[in-house]
């Protein structure tokens, strides 16, 4: 099993979710995050004070998937999340050793 972490632009969330739904992937956990990378932030002024905000709002997706579909999942996210402009984000794949469904206690792929 793989644990896929993807950081995307917030307004792409719905499209990515739909793309994943198309693959039959339902389980996703989403977090609002701030990203720092090549994409520049912005400058804010408040009376005499000027602040450079180097972080940009992003959305992080986490999904545990079966090995078999990991590549398709990555591809789906990459395609649906792309705008072609800087700051589109990243996908990271980590090894996942175990998964448990809290409601039933099922484990492994059955729990995803």
């Amino acid at each position, binding site marked *: 099993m793989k644990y896929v972490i993807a950081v995307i632009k917030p*307004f792409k969330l*719905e499209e990515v979710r739909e793309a994943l739904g198309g693959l039959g992937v339902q389980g996703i956990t989403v977090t609002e995050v701030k990203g720092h990378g090549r994409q520049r932030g*912005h*400058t*804010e*002024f*408040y009376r005499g004070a000027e602040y450079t*905000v180097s972080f940009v709002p992003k959305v992080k997706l986490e999904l545990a998937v079966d090995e078999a579909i990991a590549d398709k999942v990555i591809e789906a996210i990459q395609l649906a999340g792309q705008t072609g402009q800087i700051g589109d984000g990243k996908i990271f794949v980590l090894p996942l050793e175990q998964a448990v469904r809290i409601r039933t206690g099922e484990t492994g792929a059955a729990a995803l």
Partner: protein
Amino acid sequence: MNSGVFKSARPLAAAAAVLAFSVLPALAQETTPAAPIMDKGDVAWMMTSSLLVLFMALPGLALFYGGLVRAKNILSILMQTTMIAAVMMVVWVVYGYSFAFGGSDNPFFGGFGKLFLSGVTLESMSATFTSGVVIPEYLFITFQMTFAAITPALIIGAFAERVKFSAVVLFSVLWATFVYFPVAHMVWDANGYLFKMGAIDFAGGTVVHINAGIAALVGCIMIGPRKGYGKDMMAPHSLPLCLIGASILWVGWFGFNVGSNLESNAGATLAMINTFVATAGAILGWSLIETLHRGKASMLGAASGMIAGLVAITPACGTIGPVGAIALGALASAICYVFVSAVKNRFGYDDSLDVFGIHGVGGIVGALGTAIFSAGALGGIKGDDYSIGAQFMIQLTAVVITVVWTGVASAILFKIVDLIVGLRVKSEIETQGLDQPTHGEVAYHS
């Protein structure tokens, strides 16, 4: 104000709208009345009323609209409202008051006689609806100024979250000049076109709400829907802010409606109770319809009903009775509900904060409903010689004239503004939200 409106309602009222009594003997030549009376109670109430209308604009309207947009756009709304109010106040002193109430006898234009408030002094007085009772002209100017300050700000809700800041400011000035001041003159000045026609518009349903509501519809169609409209989640970012705004609008609206009586007398108290209970009726109406239609009464629905009721009672509050007011409020909610939840979706225009759906439609319902509920038989104060049918036709004519005037003029003005500064922000800015790119700020931090 609204003398024309009131003429038939209270035959005793002086028809004169705004007369400056800077030299009292001048008046004596015409009527040899007793010296005109300025009652401190009237002044106290009219000063309070002027503040209440300011309160409607800031923070009332700003919050009502600001709560309804997404968090990335709230400052743009707050800023547009603030800037429109400020610009309009300055314009009002410079030429607005003169264009609307400058003393000319043209039916559409007040003239250049009072540019920069020239000639107005501490002694200048304006007439009220009671013969011989006056208020300081500075007070009349101030009260009317607050109306001019809020009206263009109503419009911006229709194209919120995508309009350029510079376009809003430029449009507001042009629209005030070519739509608001002329229509205000037509409706409220003793020489005004609609005034003479006998339309009943106690506190400005035509001038303010229909006028703004139609401009809003034209604007949102010309600017086009928001990116992602109908697809993305665009839920209000803070309904509590929205309710604070709506409640302040309710409270402030008494300045608008009751202040339009110009005096602190029994007539004012009728306008007041009507402004209370029509709103109550409209809240109940909207919530009931929503419950029947959707199974749930929403807080935004109650707030929407509140505004719809206030809009509808605006022209009617001086001439109908409390039971009629409840009915009129409920009726306005019912019709606005249909526009907001069905007509808009059907035609696909993105009147983002339902300015047309509530102010435009509610204003028309109010203008026409006034004809009906003013009848004595329906609890109104009109006597036996009153004909609902005849008055209805007058009201309808006034509505049509206003709709056409503001509709055509607004379309032209939006086009002009588009050519000069452009109406709409760039797509990336719309995605990011208007606040940071346009104003260099972000509304919320931790």
